């Protein structure tokens, strides 16, 4: 559709139809052509036509020039930065036996997933199978593999829904369980499952798992420092704040011990206080105490009170949203668990390992790391929640759910606002929730239902399009021989 619009727009500007179609087919939009340079157009269309199109369509592009210049500056990166940009290599290479197995598979035309081959190779190593038996083993594996495949037209969605739904009935309805870390409270069981599948913006107990960079992962001091940098520290946590009634001032007496342990300097507090909107007057330093001196006409009890409340709640350091950070020693490394989460800013911090620090909210991961990351997060969170309750559900079902949720490039919830609301059939949507609204809308707009799904066929009393209903029988009468 966009292509047609582009073609029409170009023709309106006097470009002949052939050229316009040619440009549109290459997925150029009008804006691209307008801002393209003469050279680019000549390259695309040949000299004569390129110049012609340029004359007719191009806009003044002085502005654009400055923008491209900026981009060029950006591109000049040091070698180290370039290395940061590379696409990392993540997949571990195969072993010798596995390579051999793949060779045999290729020869015989077997198509086996890499994981199966890897597993087979591991087993061969374990039982020291002689090499001449490899072929037989692969044949047997292939036989089993074929027989366990999902058949075409199999209703994987319904099977998946059953397989998650049934164990779901055994989940605890409401528990606040302490998972893993003693002090951090995490929602578990059914409420958590609903949260994940609903794609809530913020889960009821957001949490982060922060790892330290390789170098310092055994360093308790560094872990402590990072934890205190993550946690939000307000002024009241590190100082006594009082009102001096005689001089009508707010007096701040920092606790030097606390300041030292969390690595804060008095000057930093002063800077933070000066930045707070609503605190009128000057912040003065005298010795080890700070004073907020209000201007003459504001020296009233009410405004003093207002000021002291603002001062108490002033954030001295930490990331917004993180209420608590707890260090846990796993024996292998120190991991910091946080109550509340702010993944975006945490990943920018110096000591944080960006490779494996994560949050428990798929939506937050979507915003910071993208759809694919979020897909993995949904799978992990759902599977962890089920396993925590001692329920075993095959990953494939959950992967299907995650695939559906991330199919459109963003996260869609399962339910009326998400996937179920997107069904093409009116009857299927009406059967799910808010029946009258859907039917009314369909009547007004004039929707057509082709009766392709399961629900709508049950409603009208036809065989569903699954199983034996999936095929149609056509009868082709023989032409009478003349």
């Amino acid at each position, binding site marked *: 559709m966009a292509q047609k619009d582009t073609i029409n727009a170009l023709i309106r500007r006097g470009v002949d139809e052939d050229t316009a179609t040619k440009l549109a087919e290459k997925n150029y939009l009008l804006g691209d052509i307008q801002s393209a340079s003469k050279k680019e157009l000549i390259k695309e269309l040949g000299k004569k036509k390129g110049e012609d199109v340029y004359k007719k369509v191009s806009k003044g592009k002085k502005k654009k020039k400055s923008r491209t210049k900026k981009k060029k500056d950006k591109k000049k990166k040091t070698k180290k930065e370039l290395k940061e940009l590379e696409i*990392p290599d993540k997949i571990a290479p195969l072993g010798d036996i596995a390579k051999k197995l793949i060779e045999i598979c290729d020869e015989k035309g077997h198509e086996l997933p890499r994981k199966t081959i890897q597993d087979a190779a591991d087993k061969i190593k374990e039982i020291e199978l002689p090499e001449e038996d490899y072929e037989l083993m692969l044949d047997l594996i292939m036989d089993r593999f074929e027989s366990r495949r999902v058949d075409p037209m199999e209703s994987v969605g319904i099977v998946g829904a059953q397989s998650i739904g049934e164990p779901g009935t055994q989940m605890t309805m409401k528990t606040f369980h302490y998972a893993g870390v003693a002090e951090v409270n995490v929602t578990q069981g059914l409420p958590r499952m609903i949260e994940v599948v609903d794609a809530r913006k913020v889960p009821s107990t957001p949490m982060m798992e922060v790892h330290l960079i390789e170098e310092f992962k055994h360093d308790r001091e560094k872990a402590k420092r990072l934890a205190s940098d993550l946690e939000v520290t307000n002024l009241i946590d590190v100082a006594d704040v009082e009102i001096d009634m005689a001089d009508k001032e707010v007096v701040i007496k920092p606790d030097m011990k606390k300041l030292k342990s969390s690595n804060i300097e008095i000057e930093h507090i002063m800077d933070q206080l000066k930045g707070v909107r609503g605190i009128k007057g000057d912040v003065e330093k005298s010795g080890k105490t700070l004073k907020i001196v209000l201007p003459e006409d504001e020296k009233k009890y009410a405004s003093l009170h207002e000021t002291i409340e603002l001062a108490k709640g002033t954030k001295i350091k930490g990331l917004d949203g993180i209420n608590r950070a707890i260090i846990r020693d796993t024996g292998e490394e120190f991991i910091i668990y946080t109550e509340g989460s702010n993944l975006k800013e945490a990943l920018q911090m110096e000591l944080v390992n960006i490779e494996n620090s994560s949050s428990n909210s798929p939506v937050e991961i979507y915003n910071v790391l993208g759809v*694919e990351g979020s897909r993995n997060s949904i799978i992990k969170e759902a599977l962890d929640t089920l396993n925590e309750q001692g329920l075993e559900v095959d990953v494939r079902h959950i992967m299907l759910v995650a695939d559906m949720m991330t199919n459109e490039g963003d996260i869609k919830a399962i339910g009326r606002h998400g996937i179920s609301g997107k069904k093409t059939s009116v009857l299927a949507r009406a059967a799910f929730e808010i029946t009258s609204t859907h039917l009314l809308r369909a009547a007004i707009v004039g929707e057509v239902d082709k009766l392709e799904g399961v629900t709508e066929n049950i409603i009208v009393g036809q065989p569903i399009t699954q199983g034996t209903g999936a095929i149609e029988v056509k009868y082709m009468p023989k032409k009478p021989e003349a």
Partner: protein
Amino acid sequence: MGSLNVMKHAMVPVHRLVPENEEEKILESLGTSKNKLPKILKSDPAVEQLIEISGDIKEGRMVEIERESPTAGISKAYRLVVKR
């Protein structure tokens, strides 16, 4: 996004831009057409990262994703770059 390379994160699989001349071959082997592929937004952090590596990516291009799957080992998935 600063200098954060999202593809380094353990949760994000490797994304690669599919060269335009290979698109047809892949679609044929999958037995599908372009607009039936799952989508990925142009504003997705991973796509932005690719743009930073290989220059602008137009909508309608395909991105190959090399997923580490618990059942298949490695599985390749494709997504179509779209504007929201």
